[in-house]
């Protein structure tokens, strides 16, 4: 039982991280109808920027304070992601309005290549580490309930907390602020939003920027766990089942989908994996999402698909 709970909690925590990446997809898809395959590349880019700036800034300023260096690096990385968002809108997206979904998908793949190339040219292509002072040692919990208690990785726990915090603040931003309202209006209907005077291009920059910041947070969390390296850009592929499970247009869907996928992956790997040779978590998430899709083609919380001839 304790082992089961441990696996479950581990799944929930990694699920939270998937939600974070999935959130980036959903934000952009809702606002601009672009299925952003570059989200993974953005995570890598942001993490690289963070890792390198936190290395460089102490040298430039001649100071020796880890906390301050990290804060500054974070600020610089946010600015970098803003510039990236602005450039993407300016150079690519604005010319691709009203294209088909597949064309836009390919365009974001092109953007992903560019981001990968630029990121590694500027920041280098070795493995870097991000040290934001995450505690590494595991803690025991619920020792009074179970014999031996359950082991929880503190780092995962904090990461999940940060992710939850970000999700909550994003929802407040979307629901309560004027910009958030404008974003939702654009998501609902481009033309109607434009006709009441919402500037589309600025909204897109904001959306890409927000997606960039979620990418940055995801990059920092994953990067401090696994090190910043090229394979970080593949976590977008891990988050894709989350997106279709939750529905491409639903923010709560991304969160709940992430949790379901995270738990499903961990449980399947632990309980099913040994029988078929292990490593099944990569495709199991997709299969899980597929089974859901067979019953609800629009995902858990997606808008109902209505066809008219």
């Amino acid at each position, binding site marked *: 039982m304790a082992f089961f709970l441990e696996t479950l909690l581990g799944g929930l925590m990694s699920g939270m991280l998937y939600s974070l990446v999935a959130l980036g997809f959903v934000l952009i898809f809702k606002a601009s109808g672009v299925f952003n395959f570059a989200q993974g590349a953005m995570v890598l880019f942001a993490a690289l920027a963070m890792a390198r700036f936190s290395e460089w800034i102490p040298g430039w300023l001649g100071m020796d304070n880890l906390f301050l260096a990290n804060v500054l690096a974070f600020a610089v990385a946010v600015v970098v992601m803003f510039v990236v968002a602005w450039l993407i809108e300016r150079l690519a997206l604005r010319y691709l309005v009203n294209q088909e979904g597949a064309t836009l998908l390919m365009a974001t793949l092109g953007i992903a290549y560019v981001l990968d190339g630029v990121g590694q040219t500027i920041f280098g292509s070795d493995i870097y580490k991000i040290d934001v002072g995450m505690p590494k040692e595991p803690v025991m919990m619920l020792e009074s309930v179970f014999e031996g208690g359950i082991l929880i990785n503190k780092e995962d726990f904090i990461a999940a907390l940060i992710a939850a915090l970000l999700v909550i603040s994003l929802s407040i931003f979307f629901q309560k602020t004027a910009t958030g309202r404008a974003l939702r209006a654009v998501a609902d209907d481009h033309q109607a939003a434009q006709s009441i005077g919402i500037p589309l291009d600025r909204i897109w920059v904001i959306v890409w920027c927000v997606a960039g910041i979620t990418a940055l947070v995801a990059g920092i969390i994953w990067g401090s766990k696994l090190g910043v390296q090229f394979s970080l850009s593949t976590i977008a592929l891990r988050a*894709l089942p989350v997106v279709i499970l939750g529905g491409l247009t639903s923010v709560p869907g991304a969160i709940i989908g992430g949790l379901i996928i995270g738990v499903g992956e961990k449980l399947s790997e632990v309980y099913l994996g040994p029988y078929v040779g292990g490593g099944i978590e990569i*495709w199991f998430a997709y299969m899980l999402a597929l089974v859901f899709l067979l019953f609800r*083609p629009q995902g858990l919380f997606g808008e109902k698909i209505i066809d008219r001839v």
Partner: protein
Amino acid sequence: MFYRENGQFKTSYKADQQAFAIPQDRWAIVAIVVFAFIGVPLLVDEYMFRAILVPFLILTLAALGVNILVGYCGQITLGAGASMAVGAYAAYNFMVRIDGMPALAAILLGGLMAAAAGIVFGIPSLRVRGLYLAVATLASQFFWDWAFLRIKWFTNNSSSGSVSVADINLFGWTINSPTDKYLFCLGVLVVFSVMAKNLLRGNMGRQWMAIRDMDVAATVIGIRPMYAKLTAFAVSSFYLGVAGALWGFVNLGSWEPAAFSIDRSLQLLFMVIIGGLGAISGSFFGAAFIVILPIFLNQTLPLVGSLLGLDVSIALVSHVEFIIFGSLIVFFLIVEPHGIARLWATGREKLRLWPFPH
């Protein structure tokens, strides 16, 4: 002036319905095929065959398969590499496990296996479509990647995980020199292209196109979406499977699952979108573009670097390659979202009038 159909009157239904109704087109195609079979082997050196032409032919075949599904039936797939893998590994298993199996038969059987797998993984297309389907097809990609890596039976228990095959023997013709490989692949490609051309203008192709344009409307006029979509998946996967088997048998000789990873799927999708969705010629243009561009960049970038007096490291070259490749793709999509085939079609319209303005 040279490309006008004025005065060419069709006097029978047969003449009206042939694959290339305009004689200029017909002769141009025949000339290109003859040149490819006879002219190219005389003109080109071994490096060209090995590095460019053989990969180009095989990937064109694969792009044809993707185009059938994405361009003609409107079902986006990101699992093309998996179909190639199924074809390659199935063909390998037929070769290894059955004594005296002819290689050509093994390749075709590999294609059939890929078609069967394609049907199974095409089932979600009956419920979901568009981008949801694209992600759903990734399931097949990751499943087969995993299967060929972890299930030892598929690789005949090879310890390194990579499999290899001997040279193909086709009715006494051993295919081992680059020229032989080129001719063999060219032959297969020509046969499959003719097949695709005829399939697409027949009953089945029209059903696919109806589904692509509006599947609810297609259902209303009596097209069974299940039959149409699954046949598209089957035919497309068959093409991909044969291409995959050729890629393994002819181009690589020995291979690992990584040869058919998600990058391959994305590359194939790039080909059909840059080449032109819903055009057979688009597969050729797209494959040429995607195969040649990286080689071209790889060759020229160090030269440009040395001209500018920069010391260009290999890592930098590969990064700059990424950047240029990515930006060219975005550029192409912005300038001509319908692909190179559309450029070619526009050019042909211009050619009909040339040199007169109207």
